[in-house]
Structures are given as C-alpha cells and as structure tokens.
C-alpha cells in the first residue's frame, strides 16, 4: 500500500511544461530521495504534489484521497507537510511562534507537541524566544522542519534541506531527518548533491529533463556507475 502516488504527472508554469509523465511513489514510513541536475524539475514536482501548481495531466493520490487539484491548505489537513527550499520560515516571528503557526489549524492545546519538537531539535528548545530571522541557515532549516511537523504529518516533503549549508551542518540536518523518520514519518527529499541523502534513503528516483530516468533502492543508485558519473559528481 502506498502513501503517496504520483501518476504520469505533466506540470509546469503556465504554458511551459517542466515535468513530463513523472511517476513516483512513497510508502508509509519510507525515506525516498529524488535526485537530478539543476533544472530537472525537482522543485516543480514538490510544488505540484503540494498543490502550489496544478498538474496539466496526471493524478496524485495521498492517503486514499485524490489530491490532484486540492489547494495547499486542504492538503495540510490531510497529513502532508512541505518545507520549501528557501524562505521556509517566518523570519520576524520567534522560534516558538513559528511552531505555533505550524499548528494554526489546531484549536486544542498543542504545548506537548512543541515540547516534543524541542526534544527532537534541542538547539531550538534553548532558543524558543529568539527571532528566527537572526538565526543561522542550519537553525532555520530545523525551525522549518519542526514547523512542518507540528500537525503530526504522515509525510513531509523536504526541498533541498542541505542546500547552502556547510558540510558539517548538512550532516547534522540529515541526522535529524533520520530521527524524524524514526518517529514514523515518511519523508520525500529532493536533492541536488545527493550522496548523503541517498545513503539514508529506502529508495531513490532520478529525474532529468523533467522525466523519470531511474527508480531503485538508495544503495543501488549509489552503486550505479552511470548515475554516479552523471548525477553524483563521479
């Protein structure tokens, strides 16, 4: 049984098609990475799944719901969350306020969930009252992930979580991603520099020129020489 099914989706901006016939699948509690060169359509795929772009053709199902033409705020309510690549936090709000916004649709007391997030990301717990705009790139990425996790999603979409981070910080982020996955959340990652991401993934897809190229386990993609040369920098 799959949690997310993207079936032969063609999508893009206005008349410009970026994705052609792309199909991917994420099963419950999996980590799946989509790799591919710059301009392959990875971010477009994320935006299309999350309802920020309407697919021209194809269908998307999530947790037994047809979500092909739903708006993002409806999709959030079904248990999916999305962390964009850039501008993924509210900079003028504090860490705690960012998390509160993540739980906007909840009307009950969600302070337990905030405590859980502070346990998962201890750096944030110590700085709950700090304005996020004044934090480092790595810390912002953690705020963005914690915000997206506030509603206990079944699936979280991460768009290049390690982009623009120093290698040691990227390592910290990937270690946190594994920790998030261990709480039972499925994760779909798109990455340009994907060795690290593939090594912790159950499965991976290669997207190039807006089309599916390969679909394999993370290990096998890493071991594949052709993919290594073409997409992983040798």
């Amino acid at each position: 049984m799959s949690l997310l099914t993207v079936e032969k989706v063609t999508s893009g901006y206005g008349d410009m098609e970026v994705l052609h016939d792309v199909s991917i699948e994420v099963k419950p509690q999996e980590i799946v990475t989509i790799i591919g060169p710059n301009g392959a359509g990875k971010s477009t795929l994320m935006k299309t799944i999350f309802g920020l772009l309407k697919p021209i053709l194809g269908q998307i199902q999530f947790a037994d719901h047809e979500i092909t033409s739903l708006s993002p705020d409806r999709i959030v309510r079904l248990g999916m969350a999305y962390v964009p690549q850039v501008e993924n936090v509210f900079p003028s709000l504090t860490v705690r306020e960012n998390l509160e916004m993540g739980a906007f649709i909840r009307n009950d007391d969600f302070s337990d969930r905030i405590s859980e997030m502070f346990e998962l990301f201890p750096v944030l717990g110590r700085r709950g009252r700090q304005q996020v705009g004044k934090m480092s790139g790595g810390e912002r990425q953690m705020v963005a992930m914690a915000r997206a996790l506030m509603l206990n999603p079944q699936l979280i979409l991460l768009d290049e979580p390690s982009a623009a981070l120093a290698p040691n910080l990227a390592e910290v982020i990937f270690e946190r991603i594994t920790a998030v996955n261990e709480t039972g959340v499925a994760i779909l990652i798109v990455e340009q520099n994907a060795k690290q991401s593939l090594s912790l993934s159950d499965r991976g897809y290669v997207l190039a020129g807006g089309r599916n190229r390969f679909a394999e386990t993370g290990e096998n993609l890493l071991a594949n020489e052709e993919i290594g040369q073409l997409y992983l920098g040798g």
Partner: protein
Amino acid sequence: MTTLAHIPQLLVYGVISGSIISLGGIGVSLTYSILGFSNFAHGDFMALGAYIALGLFTLFTGLGIPSAPFGPLSFGFGFILAFILAIGLTALAVIIIDRLLFRQLRRSGPIILMMSSIGVALGLRNILQFFWSPQPHYYSQAIQPAVSVTALNIRIKPDQVFIILVAIVLVVLVHAFMRYTKMGKAMRAMADNATLAQVTGINTDRVIIWTWAIGAGLAATAGILAGIENKFITPELGWQMLLSIFAGVVLGGIGNPYGAILGGMVIGISEEVSTAFISTGYKPAVAFVIMIIMLLVKPTGLLGRKD
C-alpha cells in the same frame, strides 16, 4: 524669540495631529504588508467612518438618547455610542468592499489592486457627497475653552487630551493583539511570507478579513477624531490627510505598523512645528520633503527591514 516661544504649543498640536496620522498609518501599513498593495482608499475609509458616526449621532439625538457632554468634553453618551458603532460598521463596509472587489483581483498583482483602490476612494467620496453634500458638517458647534498649563507654556482642550488618550490606548491594544493572539501572530506570519502561510495551513482568507477589520476600524477612529479636533467634517477629510499618512508610513518603514506609528508622529510634529518658521501653506510640502529625503537616504524607513 516669539517664534521659539510658540514651539511647546506647536508640539502639542503636532502630537494631536500625529496621533490621528498614526492611527491612519497602521491600516495602510497592514494592508501593504499583508495584502501587498498601497491602499489609496484608506483616507476615504476615514471619511466614511466620520460620516457614519455623524449619521448615527443625528439618529440617536432624534431618538432622544442622552447626549449631554461628559464633563469638560464637547460630546456625551450619544456620540460615544455612535463612535463605537461607526468603527464596527466601517469595518463591516470595508470587508464587504473586499469581498466584492479586492478579493476578485487578488491574483492580478499590486498595480491593479492599487488602481482599483483609487476607484474605491473616488466612489466612496462621491457617495458621501451625494448623501451629505460637499459642505462641512459639524459634530458640535459649542466653543470649548482651552486649559492653560502654565508650567509647560501650553494650552490644551479637554477634547484634545481625549484624542491623544484614545490613540495611545488603541496603539497598545493593536500591539497586544499582534504580539499575543493567534490571529495577530498569523497576520505577522502572512506579512513575512504569504505563500508559506498558506502552505503552513494558516487560513489566509480569515487573516485578510481581520486585516481589513483592524485597518478600517482604526481608520474610522482617525476620521472621527479628526472631526472632533477640527469640529467639522467634509467628504475630503481623509483624502486630504492621505499624503501625510503615506509620508509617515514610508518614513517609519512601509509594512511595519510600529514604523507607521513612529513615522506618523514625526510627520505630525514636523508639519506643526514648521509653521513657526514657514507659512502654514507649506505644511503638506513638509510631509513631502521628509518622505523624499527618507526615500533617498534609507528607502526601507526608520524601522524597515533590510531585505
């Protein structure tokens, strides 16, 4: 020497005028940051509020609702009731304008929204002229003596103290709302990044309604306070203040409501104090000059963000 001796008194006038400009500026700033356009109808929302209050006050007087002045103030219970109801009705009217017009154009971009706000401005002003004529209407014709504060070398009327107090209370309330309530935080979040707000699950349509309600409520208050200060209102009342309001908003940093408060106060005081040195006819030019200097020196304004 005589000129300098006037300055404390001019500062008082400046604070009164700055209070009204600031209340108008908060709404302009919120609309800019959350809805993404410069609302040229904001001055006319002020006039709308002032006339709704007039209409209700006239009605209440006719119904025999007591309107004897409170203590030294120039107005009483009937007027205060009209004041409060006018705030709510103006907010409601503006929300309806949003549903009918601005919401339909939300995806069309800031220029289209700004142009249509000019249309709303002209429409509202002409509706007010149609019902009340372009001639001034009076809230009160009584002459209110000013009280001397000898130590500070100033004279101030009880009504003017009321205006300043109302502005302070509302600024504190707006601050508390933005800082501590869920909707206030969502407004700040949406001002930061509207797409992310939607992706996060924030009900952006509800945030927009609240933004209009607060902006319009404060505009109505500013319009009515301007009527109390000037003793009369005309349909042009808000439009005439719009330049000072925009100057204050730009000076403080467009998109930042605290900047609008600070900027409005600076503009109000500068305009009044300038009259000690140059002809009162140049008051609007003072606002213009300050706005242009700020745009040249620091376009993000006093409290603006760097991004």
